[in-house]
């Protein structure tokens, strides 16, 4: 392969990475892949790759100052061009074709979907105020009188005795994705509600789950779909471990929020 053709192909490979980064950023899909800190970096990276790729593509035929007397090309890669192209483009192409911007339930189980809060490795600075008055000031009240919480607040309350006492028996509403409950669900009345907690990117994300108790067969809701639920929160012992359980009064399917994952603050 001639040095010029090699440079053209490698420039196109770089441009394919650039287009991918820029497309995911401009389409908004990037919110499911990266924490906010990294989204601007991703955009700048995409633009930088575009400059690198376009410059080298346009100048592919020009002779640079490092031309050797023996005629070999300093701009060539250490690896054969075809190998570089395969490595850079095949996994990317397959991932673009296969991605659904979310994990399957199997991967979620590996990422803590069925872990109990007390055993979770999640740490965050999110902390609830410790009086009921503070809670009512800082959380919106819904039409049915429930206080609206982020799911992570209910999840983390399990590890804090003061917050547990405050929230135990309280009418709360929250938002998350609903999946089947795998353990301690012989009667089939339970589901699990979760959201992801992302530190940098989706690969490091962890599931934040609570248990939903319907008291009867749960209503038909789309598996892994977004739902808003309201009911009474409790912290019973389930499977020998204290867990946050929401006894559901109402549950309805909703559209996904703009930021689907919780982010490190």
């Amino acid at each position, binding site marked *: 392969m001639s040095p010029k053709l090699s*440079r053209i192909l*490698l*420039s196109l*490979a*770089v441009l394919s*990475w650039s287009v*991918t*980064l820029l497309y995911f950023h401009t389409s908004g899909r*990037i919110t499911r*892949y*990266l924490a906010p*800190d*990294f989204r601007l*970096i*991703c955009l*700048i*990276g*995409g633009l930088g*790759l575009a400059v*690198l*790729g376009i410059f*080298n593509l346009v100048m592919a035929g020009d*002779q*640079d*100052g*490092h031309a*050797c*007397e*023996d005629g070999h090309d*300093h*701009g060539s*890669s*250490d*690896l054969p061009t075809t190998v*570089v192209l395969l*490595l*850079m483009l095949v*996994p*990317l192409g397959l*991932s*673009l074709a*296969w*991605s*659904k*911007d*979310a*994990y*399957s*339930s*199997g*991967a979620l189980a590996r990422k803590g979907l069925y872990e109990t809060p007390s055993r979770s*490795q999640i*740490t965050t600075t999110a902390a609830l105020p410790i009086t009921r008055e503070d809670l009512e000031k800082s959380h919106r009240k819904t039409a049915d009188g429930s206080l609206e919480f982020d799911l992570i607040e209910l999840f983390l309350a399990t590890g804090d005795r003061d917050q547990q006492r405050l929230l135990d028996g309280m009418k709360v509403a929250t938002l998350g994705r609903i999946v089947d409950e795998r353990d301690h669900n012989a009667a089939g009345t339970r589901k699990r509600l979760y959201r992801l907690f992302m*530190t*940098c*990117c*989706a*690969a*490091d994300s962890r599931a934040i789950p609570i248990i939903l108790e319907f008291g009867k067969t749960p209503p038909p809701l789309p598996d892994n779909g977004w739902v808003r639920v309201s009911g009474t929160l409790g912290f019973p012992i389930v499977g020998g471990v204290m867990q946050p359980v929401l006894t559901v009064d109402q549950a309805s399917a909703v559209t996904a929020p703009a930021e689907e994952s919780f982010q*490190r603050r």
Partner: protein
Amino acid sequence: MPDARQDFAFAFLSLLFEGAPFILLGTLISGLLDVYLPSGAMDRLLPKNRIGAVLVAGLLGAIFPVCECAVVPVIRRLVKKGLPVSCALTYMLAAPILNPITALSTWKAFEGQDAGLMTASRLLLGFFVAVGVGLIVSRMPLAAVLKRKLIDDLDHSHEPTCCGSSCGSDCGDHSSDTKLLSAFRSALRDFVDVGAYFAIGVTLTALFNTGIAPGAVWLDDVARHPVGAPMALMALAYILSLCSTSDAFIAATLHSFSNGAKLAFLVFGPMLDVKLTFLYQTVLRRRFIVLLALGLFVSIGGLSILWQLWFSAHP
């Protein structure tokens, strides 16, 4: 199978989006250095004293930042130009870790997970291990370290005319336009080389991260073992062959491992991995590479275990 594809794709793309901009930054700087920095400049910075020279060589990575893929051709050129081998090896091992881009990416990747401690520990451990290797090499005969062909080049004081991939700006009176073209071309070469290995690393990481790879369960099992965990992550770092400017993003996702084991991953990987094993063979004797690998594995593993024990006892 469809689930596995979906999970792999989601993890792969997220890691790619996170790491690619940092690789670009590293390769652009490397490309500019390649063309604009005279290769004698580093030599002039070093003290005449042997120990002092090795210590300063260990710090040069902070001034001349290159990642491990770019550093091998650079030191090959510098050794040919007369830089002491002990200093060249110290720089080669330390520069990928002690460079500002690596420090920044480690900090960003570990935000919320003892970022300051992990970044400082990585830089310090990398520096001390590299200086240790440099001091040992300074007492070894050249023939035990360098390839025969390189020693022959030194013996004949052969200076190639504007050749070698690490060609500096001492090549003649190039115009600024051709220098810019050379810099961009060098950056393209560096990016695709590193990008290709990064793609392998991200592919393997995505497979382990989502539990698709057969070794993922074994890796989970060993994660809590105080000695097995750093050893396993050093082996993983060797196989993944990640760029030092982006490997922290992978390490930060290894939630089941202690920070000590992650530190071993972060220090060992930039000093030795699959691709470096091949790159080192352009400069070093195979026997020396094997000894270097064993020494790095034992010393970094041991120091990481001690680090973990210390911070477990003094949280």
